[in-house]
């Protein structure tokens, strides 16, 4: 069973369809920092929602046939000194299959110390069946002090679906 509605936007129609079957897409997203988090680590560490707090994670049970479209990003700033940082995602199946993926770059410079947004999307393929945890990570590429301020947002999304 299908019906359709249309909306006229600036660039013409956007179409929505009603489907009888619910989508099988799996998805989760996250959260707001509760205190400032600063790192100078040049190897990947978990981005935390507080100085000694919780990582930003999503979990998914995969059947071994699915790809996962990861999207992560947020609002960040340098604190003591500018630099370049990479936001990444760690994929962990809990049985030894741990991989860090670079997702997006964040750069600040001396006279532009402002809070800025960054975001990236990467399709992860070849993931084995199992219970996967995806965690937002960060590492410093060029020296600097990176801060995720209280009240700012980091999000992570994992989108997997079968057609």
């Amino acid at each position: 069973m299908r019906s359709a509605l249309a909306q006229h936007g600036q660039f013409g129609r956007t179409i929505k369809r009603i489907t009888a079957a619910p989508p099988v897409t799996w998805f989760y997203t996250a959260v707001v920092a509760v205190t400032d988090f600063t790192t100078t680590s040049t190897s990947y560490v978990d981005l935390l929602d507080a100085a000694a707090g919780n990582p930003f994670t999503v979990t998914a049970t995969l059947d071994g046939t699915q790809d996962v479209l990861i999207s992560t990003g947020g609002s960040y700033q340098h604190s003591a000194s500018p630099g370049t940082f990479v936001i990444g995602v760690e994929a962990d199946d809990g049985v030894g299959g741990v991989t860090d993926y670079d997702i997006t770059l964040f750069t600040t410079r001396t006279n532009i110390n402002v809070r800025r947004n960054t975001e990236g999307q990467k399709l992860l393929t070849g993931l084995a069946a199992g219970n996967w945890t995806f965690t937002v990570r960060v590492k410093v590429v060029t020296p600097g002090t990176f801060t995720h301020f209280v009240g700012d947002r980091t999000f992570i999304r994992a989108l997997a679906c079968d057609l």
Partner: protein
Amino acid sequence: MTANVKNYHAAQAGNFSFTSTSYINALDNAGGSAIQRTITKGASSDILVLATVYGAATVNVNPTITLGVNDGTTDYDLGRTRWEGTALSSPPGMLPGLRLITGLGAGTYTFTLRIKNSVAFAAAILSGTFVSFTVIEVNTGTQINCAAMTHLYTAAWTTVGTGYNTVTTQTVAGTTIRAALTKAGAGTNVLVRGFFTGAGTGVAILGTLGILNSATDYDAMTTLLRSGQAHSPALGERLITGLAAGAQNFDLRAKCTASAWNASANIHSAGIVALEVG
């Protein structure tokens, strides 16, 4: 069987500089390869395109940059922002974009990332920054109901105050930037992704991107809206749960942390997409 999603994600191998004021292919390097993905779609489905690139002007000017996508025949706008000149030691600015492309028949399409400049001074997608380019088949009838709207401004959009205002296509009597979704299931959720690019005038000020559904505002992202040169992007996502089946509108919202974000606020582009997910 996996979802019909094609994704390009890579660090730029070198600066891709461009001065063209009409669309050209965005390349992965100076003289490099086009950024493309090929997807095969059904007769009644639509294509959702999501992208982010990062760049700056290579001289001390502040060009307006437009990101687009071509389906082999037609260029579609994705988003627009203003990048800062390198003489100002600016970090690369994010240029986000999204677009729901409808009306394509069944077949195989190669989508190519496109870009254009507003002035004859070079701007560049910067070496080492990541380009994300995703093409998703949606509205297949059984998979991922989707609604979206994208708008590029030709006149300033204005807001005042610390409370949320609905982002419209123009200040007076504008059309709401809205994803109007007909939600099929009662137990499903809705992923909403929104963005705007803009700046305060006279003062830099924190701005918040929000999503309005029914009477509820959902905060999605904060950014600092700088005054003057560059435009700051705000891009965020929220998973909204507990909504009933049927018509659900998701409107783009914006607010600032002080009332000084006033009549000179200037948004260059805005977009919102709603996806029904499990």
